[in-house]
């Protein structure tokens, strides 16, 4: 029985079987996150709607091949969205949102303080706090790499910094974010 309380995995399984009710619940659960990610990257409502629609259609079509061993449903869905948004930006030769603005909008959406976020197992809020806690140059490098898919060489060119510096910022920033994710995972493991 599919309802609004069904797990993501159950909804995907239902979608894989062609269950339209599962699709409706899934869309309503994820549309704001998907549209929010696309809009945060593009600052363009029209492009974001196109991306969000395409992302959800792909999830609907590819639900049968989702492999939970490779990551969470949320990661899968947001990776599809991110990749489609990058493609849309490239095709239109559009200027993406500045990484600092992306990070600022993320900070704006923080809903709980970090300790509460750990208790709730809320990776998003904890990552927002961890991202805010990074040195600005590390935060910018991590967002450019993790969200916009920029390589270290591209970041080096765009930021006018040595390649080694770009690599160090990416690595150091991600290692610090890893600590935040691990705190949530450890808390979940203790439950």
């Amino acid at each position, binding site marked *: 029985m599919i309802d609004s309380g069904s797990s993501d995995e159950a909804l995907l399984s239902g979608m894989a079987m062609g269950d*339209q009710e599962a699709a409706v619940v899934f*869309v*309503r659960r994820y*549309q*704001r*996150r998907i*549209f*929010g990610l696309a809009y*945060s*990257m593009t*600052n363009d*409502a029209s492009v*974001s*709607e196109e991306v969000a*629609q395409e992302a*959800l*259609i792909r999830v609907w079509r590819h639900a049968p091949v989702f492999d939970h061993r490779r*990551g969470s449903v*949320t*990661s899968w869905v947001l*990776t599809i*969205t*991110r990749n489609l948004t990058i493609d849309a930006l490239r095709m239109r030769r559009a200027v993406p949102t500045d990484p600092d*603005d992306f990070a*600022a*909008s*993320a*900070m*704006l*959406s*923080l*809903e*709980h*303080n970090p*300790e509460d976020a750990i208790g709730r197992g809320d*990776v*998003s809020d904890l*990552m*927002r*706090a961890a991202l*805010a*806690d*990074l040195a*600005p140059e590390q*935060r910018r490098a991590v*967002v450019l*790499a*993790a969200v916009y*898919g920029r*390589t*270290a060489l591209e970041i080096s060119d765009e930021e006018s910094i040595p390649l080694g510096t770009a*690599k160090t910022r*990416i*690595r150091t920033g*991600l290692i610090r974010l*890893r600590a*935040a*994710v*691990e705190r949530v*995972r450890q808390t979940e493991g203790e439950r």
Partner: protein
Amino acid sequence: MIEGARPTPCDEYSDNLAELALGILTGRERAATLAHVDSCPRCADELEQLSHAADAVASVAPEIEPPMGFEVRLFSQMGVAETPERSRRRLTPPGSVARSPRWVLATAAAVIALALGLSIGWSTGGHNGGKAADGPVGVEVATANLTANGSTVGSVNTYGGSKPWMIVTLADSGTQGKVTCEVVTGDGVTHKVGSFTAKDGYGAWGAPLRVAPQDVRKAEVVSSNGKVIAIAALHDVS
């Protein structure tokens, strides 16, 4: 690495693991690092942890309500039987976060405080528009609605502390293009804070504030032709 210790293969590849986790390592570096990870449980474990972190970065983006009609258009393309869109208590327009603005802005200021490296505690709630707030312990946060013709079209948040900051959000303001944000201090002097671009009425922006936040009496969003689009009263003059 311990002085005198012989370098291990891990030393050679560990620096690449973050980029591999982010999917941005290319060419020979990628192939060589992947080959090493295949034969090294320690680096494989490290890569898995970094990959979780890399995947989680995209999840920080705010949730934003898609435009009206989104579901109808989507379900039509998916071939899903049309279902009435859920009743929306309030249409949250693109560009605005689908959460309580007052709490969001209060916490945003606190997070920015963290970003600025300040040692602070956390408050447990939001605050009233135009008034100094609880905010992070020991610092002052003020929030006020931006209004135009009596309607709320956004909000302004100032954060005190050693590095003052200001955040402006516009939502459904009808504003398009470059706008300037100015603040007026108690001595009547207008200070330009910076410019940002509003698109389809929406925009969110933050910048360092070069005047003391407690001196700010009002904030104004000004169009490129000098017209004041919206005003927020930040501190009671009375």
